[in-house]
């Protein structure tokens, strides 16, 4: 059984609230399915057989625990604190997303549903969902924005090879936000036979809680590994935040360890001008999007702003409600990293450590490098390396040739 953190375990409350944030702002059509999901999850999390099956999958199928790797050459390059990488990129399918999709695929089976839908931005969640569905023999449809299909082509091929149907989304900005809209619309019509495997800690209750819990294995392992390898808890923990699932999974077990500062890194894009970034916690304000109340990028009329990030997985105008709660309570510090710094971090990790990070994770690496340079060698920074960068190689080459 996963260990429950010491505090904040009571959040969200019964209405799905993390303080003021979260809740359930969805059409009535979806409410029953969300209620059923909440009940199924509550039963599953107390069911030893469910937890045992999930643990066995994590060990034998995903390859967990993922290593905590001391990036010595990167640390030397920065000339300060030690940088340790939590290697979620080494998971089966190449990112942390599989932690959630296996858990939710098991829930799908438990609820007696045979069809799964999902949204994807970078394609990491799409691939992880297609993988879990193949593993359990579930029908799988993935919604993906046309712009993301272009810039993350390798993942589109993988999803198809895994037997999933990839549906192009041509509305709006043709990115993650529009993919979520279309997945929700599918679910409006298919809710009685279909489970929606939402990929991040966003959306209506109970999704933010379920996804956080399934991802918390990251932080739980990081705590144990830090104690074994570093001999204590880290001095700082850093993770990138789009919707915020890898960060929530990393941070949640640390929330009770109040001596450990936590830093979430949003996509700063081209800069702080609205439309140039995807940093609602840094530059947005609370509002409603995709079923939950959280920080969001909107205009004065409540229309969602277009956002920009070089990274498809962070190119999203909203963020999980628990992050909004952690921001306002001061437990986590949120900051933004711009496209250029993320690309530079990608290069430096590749060259010093032989690791190609996902562009999403590169944002966290960039911030960790900056913070490491300001801190003594005796300190240890743990960074969530949420995914691998193979998917981004062609797009980075294109940007440089362009």
């Amino acid at each position, binding site marked *: 059984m996963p260990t429950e953190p010491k505090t904040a375990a009571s959040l969200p409350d019964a209405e799905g609230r993390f303080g003021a944030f979260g809740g359930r702002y969805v059409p009535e059509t979806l*409410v029953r399915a969300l209620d059923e999901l909440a009940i199924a999850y509550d039963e599953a999390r107390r069911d030893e057989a469910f937890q045992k099956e999930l643990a066995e999958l994590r060990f034998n199928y995903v390859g967990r625990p993922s290593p905590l790797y001391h990036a010595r050459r990167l640390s030397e390059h920065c000339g300060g604190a030690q940088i340790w990488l939590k290697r979620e990129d080494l998971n089966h399918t190449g990112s942390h997303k599989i932690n959630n999709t296996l858990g939710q695929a098991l829930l799908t089976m438990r609820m007696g549903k045979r069809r799964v839908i999902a949204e994807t931005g970078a394609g990491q969640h799409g691939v992880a969902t297609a993988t879990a569905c193949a593993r359990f023999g579930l029908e799988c449809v993935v919604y993906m924005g046309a712009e993301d299909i272009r810039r993350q082509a390798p993942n589109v091929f993988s999803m198809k090879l895994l037997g999933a149907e990839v549906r192009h989304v041509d509305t709006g900005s043709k990115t993650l936000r529009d993919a979520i809209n279309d997945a929700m*619309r599918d679910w409006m019509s298919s*809710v009685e036979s279909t489970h929606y495997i939402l990929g991040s800690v966003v959306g209506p209750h109970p999704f933010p809680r379920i996804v956080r819990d399934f991802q918390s294995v990251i932080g739980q392992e990081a705590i144990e590994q830090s104690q074994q390898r570093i001999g204590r808890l880290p001095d700082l923990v850093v993770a990138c935040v789009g919707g915020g699932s890898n960060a929530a999974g990393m941070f949640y077990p640390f929330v009770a360890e109040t001596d450990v500062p936590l830093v979430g890194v949003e996509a700063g894009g081209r800069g702080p001008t609205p439309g140039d970034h995807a940093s609602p916690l840094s530059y947005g304000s609370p*509002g409603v999007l995709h079923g939950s109340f959280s920080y969001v990028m909107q205009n004065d*009329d*409540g229309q969602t702003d277009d956002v920009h990030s070089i990274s498809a997985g962070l190119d999203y105008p909203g963020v999980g409600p628990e992050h909004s709660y952690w921001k306002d309570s001061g437990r986590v510090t949120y900051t933004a990293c711009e496209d250029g710094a993320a690309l530079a971090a990608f290069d430096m990790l590749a060259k010093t450590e032989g690791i190609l990070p996902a562009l999403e994770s590169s944002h966290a690496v960039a911030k960790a490098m900056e913070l490491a340079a300001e801190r003594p060698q005796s300190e240890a920074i743990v960074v969530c390396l949420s995914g691998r960068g193979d998917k981004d190689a062609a797009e980075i080459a294109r940007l440089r040739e362009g």
Partner: protein
Amino acid sequence: MPAIDDLFRDLRAKQRKALMPFVTAGDPNPEFTERLIGEVVGRGASLCEIGIPYSDPIADGPVIQASYVRALGAGVRLNEILAMLGRVAPKVAAPLVTMVSYAIVYRHGVQKYLDEARQAGLAGLIVPDLPVDEAARLAEQCRAADLSLVQLVTPTTPRERAVRIAAASSGFLYYVSVAGITGERTELPADLVDNVAWLREQTELPICIGFGISRPEHVRLLSPVADGLIVGSAIVRRVAEAAEKPADQVIAEVGDYVASLLAALPA
């Protein structure tokens, strides 16, 4: 007493049913919408639902989505829409109800939205992404502002919950005909009439049915069990042709279409 309550009391006394066209505000511009509302009410619509364009409408099918994209793409702002509604409301003999996302109401300021809606002469609002569990505070504020807050029941709503929603709703109860998104359908669910008839037994509140209704035969089938019928995508689809046709012609065609549905209501 809110205008919608007066309307349905009057309709029931006369044993008449309501037809409620849905139009997207600002598609293709507010002046067109203003004329269109005048047209459909002039033809005999008893009330009119005004869709406030929203960037991320998850309950809407392609036709209404596209109308929101057109309106927002043309740069329409909420203040302009409310000003337009303020001009048209006193001129038409029918309550106007906005269909508006909570994202918009919250960002504008809940009390400010209600005050301005009241000032514009609107009768109420439908907030499709605010389920009853989240709506208690807004319902209270609407009561204080003498506005109706219309809530929705769908085929996926468990029966005891439907009763709770009926108790919380005001003006009328919006029964969504299908588990799905807005859009014209050739066939409606087989159990629709029975489901509405059941709901009819549970509440005194008027019941209006929406989603999928587009044909005179739908109107004939459903009007015996409902107090009113809501028609959206079939109208919005005709308005989409305003890009290629003169506005007068499009407005007249929508008017003719509304008249054809009105003719299918019991006299």
